[in-house]
């Protein structure tokens, strides 16, 4: 849609921008503003969780012990590694190394899928242990209602996070296709923007992991 026009230096820019610098900064700031909304989107459910956790500390700790901390930890490693690969991909993009960039993007994609795979496996184990509220929740111990509350939040938080992963992976798949054709050779802003988003999703998990899995003592 928007026609591009050329300026004296740098790649072509969309019609309404003066130069590449302006377009680049606008795009980056736009993503940061979007991430600020995401902070509050996730923040709301974190606040709700911590309100109930403060009220039912012991019950929530007991419930937390029923999660698979090992899978959570492995997934943290996977996601942090994918953050590294995406940061390196951005770096490669800035240095015009197309092949390297595509390779790192593929690595990020694979790690993202691995995360989802582990997560799905973990959900399956949770299901087998009758820990899925509204489907097969059954709790032998005391305070089943409050315990269920923990698992409701566990599923909402991890599913919303996983949804963000799925969106990220879909976008990334399309971007790899574009990158192979050289679409980002002149201007790798899109890869940078994707990197910001991906790092943010990683940060959410950095907080989710201790919140759900580690607060058990």
């Amino acid at each position, binding site marked *: *849609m*928007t026609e591009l026009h050329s300026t004296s230096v740098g790649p072509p820019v*969309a*019609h*309404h921008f*003066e130069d590449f610098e*302006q377009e680049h*900064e*606008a795009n980056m*700031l*736009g993503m940061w*503003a*979007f991430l*600020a*909304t*995401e902070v*509050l*989107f*996730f*923040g*709301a*459910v974190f*606040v*709700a969780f911590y*309100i*109930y956790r403060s*009220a*039912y500390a012991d019950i929530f700790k007991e419930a937390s012990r029923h999660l698979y901390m090992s899978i959570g930890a492995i997934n943290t490693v996977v996601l942090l590694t994918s953050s590294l690969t995406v940061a390196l991909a951005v770096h490669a993009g800035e240095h015009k190394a197309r092949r390297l960039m595509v390779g790192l993007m593929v690595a990020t994609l694979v790690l993202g899928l691995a995360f989802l795979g582990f997560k799905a496996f973990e959900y399956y184990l949770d299901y087998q242990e009758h820990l899925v*509220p*509204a489907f097969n929740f059954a709790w032998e111990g005391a*305070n089943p*209602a*409050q315990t*269920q*509350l923990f698992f*409701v*939040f566990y599923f*909402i938080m991890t599913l*919303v996070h996983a949804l963000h992963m799925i969106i990220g992976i879909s976008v990334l798949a399309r971007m790899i296709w574009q990158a192979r054709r050289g679409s980002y050779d002149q201007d790798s802003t899109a890869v940078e923007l994707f990197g910001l988003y991906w790092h943010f999703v990683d940060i959410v998990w950095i907080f989710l992991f201790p919140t759900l899995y580690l607060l058990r003592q």
Partner: protein
Amino acid sequence: MSATAPALKIREPSYINAAYTAKSWLLTTDHKRIGLLYMVAITFFFFVGGLAATVVRLELLTPQGDLVLPETYNKLFTVHGVIMVFFFLIPSIPTTLGNFLVPIMIGARDMAFPRLNLASWYIFMVGALFAIVALIGGGVDTGWTFYTPYSTGFSNTQVIPMAIGILIAGFSSIFTGLNIIITVHKMRAPGMTWFRLPLFIWSMYATSLIMVLATPVLAMTLVLIAVERTFHVGIFDPALGGDPLLFQHLFWFYSHPAVYIMILPGMAVVSELITCFSRKPIFGYKFIAFSSIAIAVFGFLVWGHHMFVSGQSIYSSLIFSSISFAVAIPSAIKVFNWTATLYKGSISWDTPMLYALGFIGLFTIGGLTGLFLATLPVDVHVTDTYFVVAHFHYIMVGSAVLAYLGGIHFWWPKISGRMYPEWWGKVSAITIFLGFNLTFFPQFIAGYQGMPRRYYAYAPEYQVMNVLSTAGASILAIGYVLPLIYLIWSMREGEVASDNPWGATGLEWQTESPPPTFNFAETPIVTAEPYQYNPDGTFTPQTTLSVRQIKKEVAA
């Protein structure tokens, strides 16, 4: 100096005449056309919400419930609230006038993200579709606040489609706000420093801050509501360990700042109108500019004053009550500065000015009664009475809608290229002002005497006030229909407008009426502060130069 630079105007086809096909409108990325798309959509919703209000007022003509069933009445006031808040007031000025004016006022060719801008309109329409489906499917009876546990456990109405519709429309609001913020930061023309920005822009920026930072919380809250209602898992249900007050905290974290999403744009418009029609520079530019930001920030700290009787901690209530008074300070700063601008001004009584003056009066009443409600013991007395209803209608209808209409009239020549009929404009402004006061002032009295809100029947001693109110509503309805008719009429039949019919200083008046697709033939250079009006009618426009002219002169 009152001349504008001819170099800024090269007769290109205007944005309206650039293309005529439906596709050219529905796939446009021109911020001006998107503003008009929004205007059509929200005008529709304004009249849908108004229709529900009409039936409510008719029902309340008599103390008995004789027109509609109690269940229907609950749905009517819910529909009125949901539609007016989420599908009219929140998008009203930011998406129409904001979309249209922000890039032009700062000398940009478009918003920073034109495609996102168009996407936001489609997202809004999808959200609106869900809302309409919810209405056709039987409506919602929870009130616009969706309080739990009623909304999640007991109501048999279409809560989920409505919640999804609001959630989706919320994203359109986030994207509009994001676009405005980045546009103001990154797209300003050379010479347009922060303190040369029109006050409209400052207020729009403050509004956008709220949209971007508050709306996501509402989105998550609605997700939680939908999950609880679908799966009966008790997130806010006390029977299952939840706390209904947590819902209220999350809901009002958005919905109180949302009040400022509705009123700040009104202040944005009025700041432009008052100075232009007083032919005086605005009094206290920086105070008005920073008070907008202060309102946006303070607005986030006071949500608990909606929960004084909910059972929240009394200590919290005390804090929320005292901070609520603090919001009055920046609001009062604005009112004082507007009045100081009027003082010894050379005032003309054109339609936009009538609307702006009406705004100041109604906003003052609405704001001062807000102080009553911020006062903890008084609020306990009048909670859930018509006093509250009257208060927020003075702000959200009296102020916000008057400012919206004032802005539409003021910029109508720029938007349509035609003048509206001045006589009819004045008639509508005065009709709305009188009708509004007759509708809502009696509600203060009925409320203070103890008439509760949200009931389809009431004690007979309140009937006098209610008859007055309903009579006022019928006058108000005429006042609203008038502009709809004569503005549409004027698009074809109105007198052709000059580029700057008001002799105003802003950049939008230095280009053509209506502007070309990219707003200016050449990027303007801003050479002056805003609002340099002189009492004799002359003025200094914010630009008399363009980038190309400068380059030519340097080359010469």
